[in-house]
């Protein structure tokens, strides 16, 4: 039930909601629980709310750490 899915912010509306694209599907979500977010950023969506903005720099570290580590 704590499932949350990453999606890309497409459009931000005045009522603090946004259109989020998840694998080609557009969902409307509340931005009430996160600080300012920009169009193009990725957020984590849970039960109709964006619950966190995905940190793009941290997201790459796993590949840097393990790419070609053992061969």
């Amino acid at each position, binding site marked *: *039930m*704590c499932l*949350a899915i990453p999606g890309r912010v497409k459009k931000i509306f005045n009522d603090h909601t946004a259109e989020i694209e998840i694998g080609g599907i557009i969902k409307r979500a509340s931005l009430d*629980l996160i600080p300012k977010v920009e169009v193009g950023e990725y957020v984590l969506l849970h039960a*109709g*709310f964006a619950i966190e903005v995905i940190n793009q720099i941290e*997201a790459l570290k*796993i590949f840097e750490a*393990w790419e070609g*580590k053992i061969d």
Partner: protein
Amino acid sequence: MKYIDEYRDKRIAQNILQKINIISKKKVNLMEVCGTHTVAIFRNDIKKILPTNINLISGPGCPVCVTPVSHIDEIISLSRKEDFIITTFGDMIRIPGSTSTLEKEKTNSADIRIVYSTLDALKIAQNNPSQEVIFMGVGFETTSPTIASAILKAQEGKINNFSVLSVAKIMPPVMKALLESKEVNIDGFICPGHVSAIIGSQPFNFIAAQYGVPCVICGFEPLDILEGIYMLINQIENDKAEVEIQYKRVVKPEGNRIALERINEVFKVVDSNWRGIGNIHHSGLEIKDKYNQHNARRFKVEIEETKEPRGCRCGEVLRGIIIPPECPLFGEICTPEDPQGACMVSSEGTCAAYYKYSRGRPCVCP
């Protein structure tokens, strides 16, 4: 899909797995306390690919499964009231109460509606001003800020016919209760990634400091889980006990400040009853008096005497003492089509995950 597909890279998974094999010497039990982890571990066959000395145990990670029968009976009683609409996440409607389920009440003409979000429930309240709309507030810290946000919106918009029956629960106290009970030996916790997105890593510090049990907050894709297991094994083999964050792209040590503010504004921490585990000190959330207008407990209902499903061993499953196939009802009398206990109903229940992913294949049990 970005932030999903790349974390399923087989080559990198092999690299991590190989490293786990190299460093892992001790026989260990690692417990995951999030139902989404349980499902991800089964779906990706992670138990099978790990060295045999690493045993993964599922804990009380599904909020639907840990909701006690008495709370199901409470929402069922509310659903029988005239002019009441019950809104709930889908997983709840088939959970057996003492003598009924929300699904059965629906066929008996109760107005029960499945929603995807608390905001959908709020909309139903706005569209039905002459009826009382109750939302079944089940969830851990991932979901409770979304419930709090809906209550704040209802207060602000004077949507007085919107109420929540709060059965929300907090994760760290149940982990403490499991450690205190000493029923299972837990050498490390795979901590819940999305609960931690809200609460951060700090609330787990006492587990490492007081109980000497390593914790790693993990994401949900195969590479996340494997890297998290590697980090745990690395701590265990080096006799360390710390709280580490593997899921750094989402989780900050301090958590999500805004979401925490919403929770603290609306809820107070109370003792809470967990199915199969019992009452746990300061492990639940109740709506503060100042938001009483939106607390469904202001409606007085009679709740029937609690009857636990006969023979169901959910409690032991939730505490990690037995695995589902050890329950005599598993797969015979208890199936997802005809579930006897909550752990078989919810898709994130351990019994449902075992049933779905181990049937017709060699058993993946340890």
